[in-house]
């Protein structure tokens, strides 16, 4: 397995491997890698997602209200996000 990426980088990479994902799904997928770390918190993940969205690298076109009445936003990667990943993703991660 390739070395761990910085968390924000890995979140962007994970979103590129799925059609769309909400924060809970992203955290579940990345738990084996970052789950024991102190930074593994929903607020931290949300901050990364909102920053990625503010930088026009991911989109948040899909939003729903769940059974508990809470907002769930599904994020998906866009063209600019894919371009950045293609350019800067370390070699060991390219086939993932």
């Amino acid at each position, binding site marked *: 397995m390739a070395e*761990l990426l*910085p968390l*924000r980088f890995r979140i962007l990479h994970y979103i590129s491997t799925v059609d769309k994902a909400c924060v809970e799904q992203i955290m579940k997928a990345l738990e084996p890698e970052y789950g024991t770390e*102190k930074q593994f918190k929903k607020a931290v993940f949300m901050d990364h997602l909102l920053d990625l969205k*503010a*930088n026009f690298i991911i989109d948040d076109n899909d939003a*729903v*209200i769940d059974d508990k009445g809470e907002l769930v936003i599904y994020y998906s990667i866009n063209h600019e996000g894919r371009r*950045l990943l293609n350019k800067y993703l370390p070699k060991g991660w390219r086939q993932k």
Partner: protein
Amino acid sequence: MNTSANQRAILMKEKLNADFARKGVLTGLFSGCTWGLNSVLLGLALGLVPILGEEAAIYAIPLAAACMNDSLAGLWLLIYNGTAGRFQEIIRSLKTFPGIMVCIAALLGGPIANGGYLLGISLAGPAYALTITALYPIVGALLSRIFLKQHIVPRVWVGMVLSIIGAIVISYVPPEGGNSSVFYLGILFASLAAFGWGAEAVLAVYGMSMIDPKIAINIRELTSGIVLAIFVLPLVGGWAVVSKVITMPVAFGAFAVAALAAGVSYLAWYKANTTIGVAKGMALNGTYVMWGVIFSVLFLDQPLTQTLVIGSGLVLVGATLVAINPKEFFKKGGEA
């Protein structure tokens, strides 16, 4: 899923994004406030450094101060990131290309811009050098348009220009007569400083698309501090100043406190730049000139002259224009 639930979800999402952007604006203002505090504290700390001759006052002391400020801020940030469990993120980031970009941004904004700034002042005189270096937010905004494709609305341009005029009014010093033969070289160095600070923000924001701003700023401060310490200080005799300060607990403590303000300020600036864009982030950070005046009047009994009031007023109006859209602000329940 019915239509009203859909609409409610969209409204909630828009509110979340708007609140996030508003927090970014406040973070940008906070970065300006703490940078103003850093300037005042650094001034106080410099006052505690013993007189080491005229030569030292021009290059050695300011560059040693810059080195201590960046290095100590880097250490404060290391403590902050370490206790938050992000230490390994620094190592991971440095192994990626965006992490290297942040290091290059550090060199542009640290040794290159700081060096250019000091050489500009010494060769061309403060009147011209300070005016030119005050233009750095415009350089940053232009570069962010070209390289980051960030759209800047006319309101933000106007606000930025007003802020810069205000900053020039505050820091203006009447030019001394007679241009020396090195005058144009000084202008060139001052331009290099404005370019360095502008380019730093753009390059750092590009890197921060993939790296946490809290980590990026830690890398930036440590890189700048280490390069200044190893490559720049030996050239100007700066180590004599640093070793003197280290033996004086009060002076060293003053530099450490100033560096804490610098670390907090830079942390806020990098975060604001990623959240609300380089142009707004830089313009709001630029309010430090006004905050510097406020702190100096409040705590150092500096007289409040007409020039300082006018300059600070312009900075305030300019920053407000950058941060808030008046049309939306005055709408009922307006979004800023």
